[in-house]
């Protein structure tokens, strides 16, 4: 049997592009110096690290001294929120949304335990936060607003610019988890009035285990870790040099290709959505237009996501699901609940996230293989009555 792989889980992680691998490989081989070392092998690596930092900053319209390397999106989010709260030193108020990634949401829950108050803003049925609700939620001691740029499950884009302007007007820090957006859509921290921004390399065809935190000059923050003086002491520890180099290259490539890629992915995405809806009793989750170029999230009525995934996997199609059964936790996705899906519709959700390398044939293939899978599972379902 020919083994075909149609990878449609780019929201979970992405392949490292060949150009990126080739670019970082020397730093896993002959260019092994420690960038903090004084000698030539160290100094040469330092220079490469700083070039990569510059590339990463450039991609956001930021200065390179506003860019801190981290070990990924989770760490960036943790440093941003906890670091600002730690520096503040006294309890205050935080505004976020109910559909953030756990790396924001669960940090906020932790901060509540430490005495802070958190408003988790609701979203509409498309998953959008209303900027007016942000405005209304502001309190005397609100010190940070954290709203993601796009949701990882349903792909909905948030009105970041409006929220940024509002935060700026009030002198409140604005953090955005842009892990799903950087490299997919243009991001400029100045246009968006963002003070802190998280990104992660492995979501944009860079390596896993490296990310960055943009922090506008003047933002007051305390480091969470102590140790050496790397990353101007905000994130001490010997630098993940190959990761940093790979991230710089990946982001440079990704950002340069946005216009072409956006058009291409949106086309594939809309074809896939249309084809899946055609199966019948399939509904789109998230916003029909204001969504990530590569994100398709649908609910198949009467059946459960994990069993769809397993069946797709047997055909060589890699996707993911917000179903409880597939998440490692037992609860259905908080995002799908927040947009008002009932338990069983949430249960039947499947995300196909498109990216680098996907093409028309992949869409054809998925649209050929999915209907019989859905049909088979529905035929086993106690809730389904075929007409």
């Amino acid at each position, binding site marked *: 049997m020919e083994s075909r792989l149609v990878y449609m889980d780019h929201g979970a992680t992405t392949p490292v592009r060949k150009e990126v691998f080739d670019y970082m490989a020397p730093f896993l081989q002959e260019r092994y110096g420690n960038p903090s070392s004084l000698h030539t092998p160290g100094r040469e690596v330092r220079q490469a690290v700083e070039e990569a930092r510059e590339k990463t900053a450039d991609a956001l319209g930021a200065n390179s001294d506003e860019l801190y390397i981290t070990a990924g999106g989770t760490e960036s989010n943790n440093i941003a929120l906890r670091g600002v709260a730690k520096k503040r030193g006294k309890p205050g108020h935080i505004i976020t949304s109910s559909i953030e990634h756990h790396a924001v949401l669960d940090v906020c829950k932790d901060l509540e335990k430490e005495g802070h108050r958190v408003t988790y803003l609701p979203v509409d049925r498309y998953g959008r936060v209303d900027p007016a609700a942000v405005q209304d939620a502001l309190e005397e001691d609100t010190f940070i607003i954290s709203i993601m740029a796009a949701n990882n499950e349903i792909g909905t884009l948030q009105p970041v610019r409006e929220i940024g302007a509002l935060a700026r007007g009030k002198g409140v820090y604005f953090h955005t988890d842009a892990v799903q957006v950087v490299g997919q859509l243009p991001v400029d921290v100045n246009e968006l009035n963002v003070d802190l921004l998280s990104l992660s390399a492995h979501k944009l065809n860079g390596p896993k285990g490296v990310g960055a935190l943009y922090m506008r000059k003047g933002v007051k923050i305390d480091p969470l870790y102590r140790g050496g003086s790397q990353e101007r002491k905000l994130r001490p520890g010997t630098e993940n040099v190959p990761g940093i180099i790979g991230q710089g290259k990946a982001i440079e490539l990704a950002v340069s290709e946005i216009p072409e890629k956006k058009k291409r992915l949106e086309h594939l995405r809309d074809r896939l959505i249309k084809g899946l809806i055609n199966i019948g009793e399939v509904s789109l989750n998230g916003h029909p237009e204001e969504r990530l170029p590569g994100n398709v999230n649908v609910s198949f009525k009467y059946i459960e996501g994990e069993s769809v995934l*397993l069946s797709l996997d*047997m055909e060589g199609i890699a996707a993911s699901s917000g179903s409880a059964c597939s998440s490692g936790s037992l609860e259905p996705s908080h995002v799908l609940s927040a947009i008002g899906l009932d338990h069983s519709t949430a249960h039947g959700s499947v995300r196909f996230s498109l990216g680098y390398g996907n093409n028309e044939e992949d869409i054809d293939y998925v649209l050929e293989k999915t209907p019989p899978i859905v049909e088979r599972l529905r035929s086993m379902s*106690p809730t389904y009555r075929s007409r």
Partner: protein
Amino acid sequence: MYSEKVMDHFTNPRNVGELANADAVGETGSFKCGDTMKLYLKVKDERIEDIRFQTFGCGAAIASSSMLTEMVKGKTIDEAARVTNQDVADELGGLPPMKLHCSNLAADALQDAIADYKSKQRSV
């Protein structure tokens, strides 16, 4: 994640469907993850002559349902009543820990079906 046996029962589930003239029907669901199962029994001389299931759930849920039906088909009601969810999991060659508590409920559906059967016997 899943054993080969689980994947086999997921891919080629045994005894799937409804029984039009079932002597008993059992149903159960997991509050935790939302899986639901339905079992149909045909009983003759206190023996399970035929059995069918319908399941809304993940791979483990479907495989457990299928496995259970194989395990109890031909058994007496009393013998079948002794089959536990753990027995089903064991017979499948084990299940991932988290699935033990949410998707492995077929024996509960069977208990429910047996109760249905007994209550119908009494009311006859």
